[in-house]
């Protein structure tokens, strides 16, 4: 029993860790990309492409990464396959479109008046960006939460490049899938509840933190 519990905790903790880091990693390029995109006059085409990639099948992405990381693949020498790092990379790529699309929508409304305002008060470009992010922080946070939730909830990448190895790369979704495969539906559902509880409580914690920081 206690062994089971410690296993569940282990998997939960690993999920939180990998997907949290993947989200943070993705922020590094997604937010700047969204910021730059929001300055473009005619961004319709790019918008459409990025929005369409929001739902890219995780199995497909997993497969592509697998072929890249596989020992006969271009990046095979990195020996990343079936490591938590591989999942991390895969998930950070996976959430990029949703992170860009949703934060772009928020930034776009704010960018043009506030960029001008920032310059009119003597701000540098970096300070202007900081102002714009600050003004759209609620939307950006929402966008980050959605991305985190997407990372936590995805299966394909974790399965294909993580390999669902017990005690090493098993995360909540791969554990759920295993439960389903083994016919242990109740266990799968319990893990699912844990997963949802995890993302919901993280989201609430972040929102509460935001509110506290503002006042």
């Amino acid at each position, binding site marked *: 029993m206690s062994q089971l519990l410690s296993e569940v905790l282990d998997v939960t903790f690993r999920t939180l860790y990998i997907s949290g880091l993947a989200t943070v990693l993705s922020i590094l390029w997604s937010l700047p990309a969204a910021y730059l995109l929001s300055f473009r006059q005619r961004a319709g085409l790019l918008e459409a492409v990025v929005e369409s990639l929001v739902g890219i099948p995780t199995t497909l992405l997993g497969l592509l990464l697998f072929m890249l990381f*596989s020992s006969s693949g271009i990046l095979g020498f990195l020996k990343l*396959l079936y490591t938590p790092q591989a999942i991390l990379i895969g998930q950070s790529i996976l959430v990029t479109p949703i992170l860009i699309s949703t934060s772009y929508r928020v930034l776009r409304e704010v960018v043009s008046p506030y960029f001008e305002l920032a310059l009119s008060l003597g701000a540098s470009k970096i300070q202007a960006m900081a102002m714009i992010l600050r003004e759209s922080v609620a939307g950006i946070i929402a966008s980050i939460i959605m991305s985190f939730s997407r990372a936590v909830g995805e299966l394909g990448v974790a399965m294909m490049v993580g390999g669902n190895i017990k005690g090493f790369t098993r995360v909540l979704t791969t554990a759920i899938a295993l439960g389903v*495969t*083994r*016919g242990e539906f109740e266990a799968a559902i319990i893990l699912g509840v844990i997963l949802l509880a995890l993302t919901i409580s993280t989201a609430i914690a972040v929102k509460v933190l935001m509110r506290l920081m503002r006042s």
Partner: protein
Amino acid sequence: FSPFYEVRVRIFTTTSLYATGLLDYLADQFKKENPTVKLEYMAVGTGAALKYAEQGDACAVIVHAPSLEKQYLEKGVLEPGIIFAYNFFIIVGPKTDPAEISNLNNVIDAFKKIYSVGEASKTVFVSRGDNSGTHVKELDIWKRANLNPAGKSWYKEAAAGMEQTLVVANELQGYTLSDIGTYLKFKKQGRLPNLEILYANSTDLNIINIYSAYLVKKCLGEERKYAEFFIRFLENRQDIIGSFGLSEYGQSLFYPVKDKIQEVQALWVKLSAG
């Protein structure tokens, strides 16, 4: 985890074998003797497992489709391996058994009956359709029966793992070919109320299911050394395999090959010829 003193050995295995829990059980036993080795199982279909082996991402594979295995042996992907267990496929289907196969004693006859009853729209057959060992076996039986159900409306290709296929068959009240282990596990969990074993025959060599383990040529170094250990372990500790599941299901899920090695090997050769 401490990857520094542990050796990771990546083994690709068929889903059915992994889902029964046998492999985890074996890994625990193996770990007792080799505490610094970590066996990592990747459960996929036989077709995919062999493909991964070809890519060089597996160090060892455990599979059950002799004809496919032979191809990859000839391609030089695998080293000559060992047969470590076997069991028999079964046909499961609705209690009412519309095709009346339960009193037959030849799987080919059973498939023929299913075909004709299916043509009369009185039943359905659910196929794995995923190029797994079980799927290869099923296609082989159709071929032996000189029938081609592909495209028939009663022939459902629910391309998925064994579990999912059983669940689909249960819902559609249809027939399917299954390995005994997955079926018993799901049956015991109450997931398959509509399905019964309608054909099981441990003398019908057409439905023998032979599990082999291979070392992958591209696997080198420490990992290869311990993968070899594990294969050796499978060969030598057949007692564990034979007793697995006895207490839980009242019957063995896998039979050790030790005493019948010649016989089984001969069958393997016959099956691999396609």
